[in-house]
């Protein structure tokens, strides 16, 4: 069972339908207790970083996610990926979940040479695999993925980088640390490739026997 973390931001329908197409059972919930009964989590999200963190805190989801990240697989998508990092400069500097070291910055919209470019980074961009050992991309060939975002992650540790895209510089596209993963693009909108990546995540979840049970010793 997959738990889609619903904190009131973003369109969960497409993601839930993508899981349905993969014949994966899921629940959509904002209740840590309910999410805790699942084997793996997906943190979606569209919108502003600060609003999202505010809602996660309000619903006691930020503490829950931080606790469970050691034992239960977690996949953040788009803004959901950005929330995994230490902090974001979107609006005012806001603390994130701190599960992967790094900071979120806005695309400047102009290169060092003074060339203007479009923000958001919107559309299909190619991926380059940096860590092909990662379970998330096992058996996959680098392909196009669908991106829509105005902010990007600046990683502190290069060993958390799994794949990058090129948009006037390196844009971390897939990141991971332990059981915590993130994709800057939308796998649920990235055609056959995105579906295969989601399938890899679901396989990884099913292979982790230890399901987290918060309130017990190991959490």
């Amino acid at each position, binding site marked *: 069972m997959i738990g889609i973390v619903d904190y009131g931001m973003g369109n969960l329908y*497409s993601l839930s339908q993508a899981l349905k197409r993969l014949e994966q059972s899921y629940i959509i919930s904002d209740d840590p207790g309910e999410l805790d009964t699942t084997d793996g989590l997906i943190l979606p999200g*569209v919108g502003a970083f600060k609003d999202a963190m505010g809602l996660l805190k309000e619903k006691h989801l930020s503490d829950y996610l931080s606790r469970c990240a050691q034992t239960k697989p977690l996949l953040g998508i788009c803004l959901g990926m950005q929330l995994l990092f230490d902090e974001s400069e979107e609006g005012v500097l806001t603390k994130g979940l701190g599960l992967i070291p790094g900071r979120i910055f806005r695309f400047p919209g102009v290169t060092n040479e003074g060339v203007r470019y479009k923000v958001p980074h919107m559309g299909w961009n190619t991926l380059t695999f940096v860590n092909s050992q990662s379970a998330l991309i096992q058996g996959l060939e680098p392909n196009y993925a669908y991106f829509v975002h*105005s902010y990007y992650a600046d990683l502190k540790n290069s060993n958390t980088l799994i794949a990058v895209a090129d948009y006037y510089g390196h844009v971390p596209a897939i990141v991971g640390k332990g059981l915590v993963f993130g994709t800057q693009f939308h796998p649920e909108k*990235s055609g056959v490739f995105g579906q295969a990546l989601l399938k890899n995540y679901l396989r990884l979840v099913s292979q982790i026997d230890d399901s987290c049970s918060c309130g017990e010793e190991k959490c």
Partner: protein
Amino acid sequence: MLAKRIIPCLDVKDGRVVKGKQFVQLRDAGDPVELAMFYNHEGADELVFLDISASNEGRNTMVEVVKQVAAKLNIPFTVGGGIRSLENIKTLLRAGADKVSLNSSAVANPELITEGANFFGNQCIVCAIDARLNSETGTYKVYTHGGQKETPLDAVVWAKKAVDLGAGEILLTSMDQDGEKNGFELNLTRKISEAVDVPVIASGGAGKASDFLDAFEEGKADAALAASIFHYKETSVASVKKFLKQKGVAIR
């Protein structure tokens, strides 16, 4: 490298696609879901559904269509036509659309762009602009209500304003070129693409594969949309993309 996008547009009336009759290989060429899956299979990067229903019943049917499409399609899609309120925007996005496009309602009520963008993010709000050249002044005027009503707005000025208000993309249709199959309106497309810092979709006038190349190279468009030439099988998404790839354009 970020790819240029090819976007087929499907006109939907009362839940049925109009103009898709050439698709003899489909069981039901009027079924939006089946046609969407066909274009997805052909390599479309994104789809636009334009609701041309005139009645409320037709509009409600569109919400059902959006749900059905979202359940099957694994590429992004935009829904436009008859969206008048934040409530309409919410309903369509929650039904699974990735973006909504606002046209007449954005001109009548520009705050709607901001309200929508604040709620779901700029990337969800497309400002659709129908423009026509005024040959006396050499400027392009914005038209609304399916091209029926002329407004005093200059297309380039309006595009910039729409982006300032929160639009994350501009869908620019040239009414002069639309249906003519003589190629996209390159001059205006370039002007707008250079004036705004969000992606611009060129629309109206596609007749052959090289028109798309012109839209990207001369028009500086980020994406190009077409309806009839795909529906009537004058060319296919796959063959347009193949041509563009051969010309060195970044294409998925």
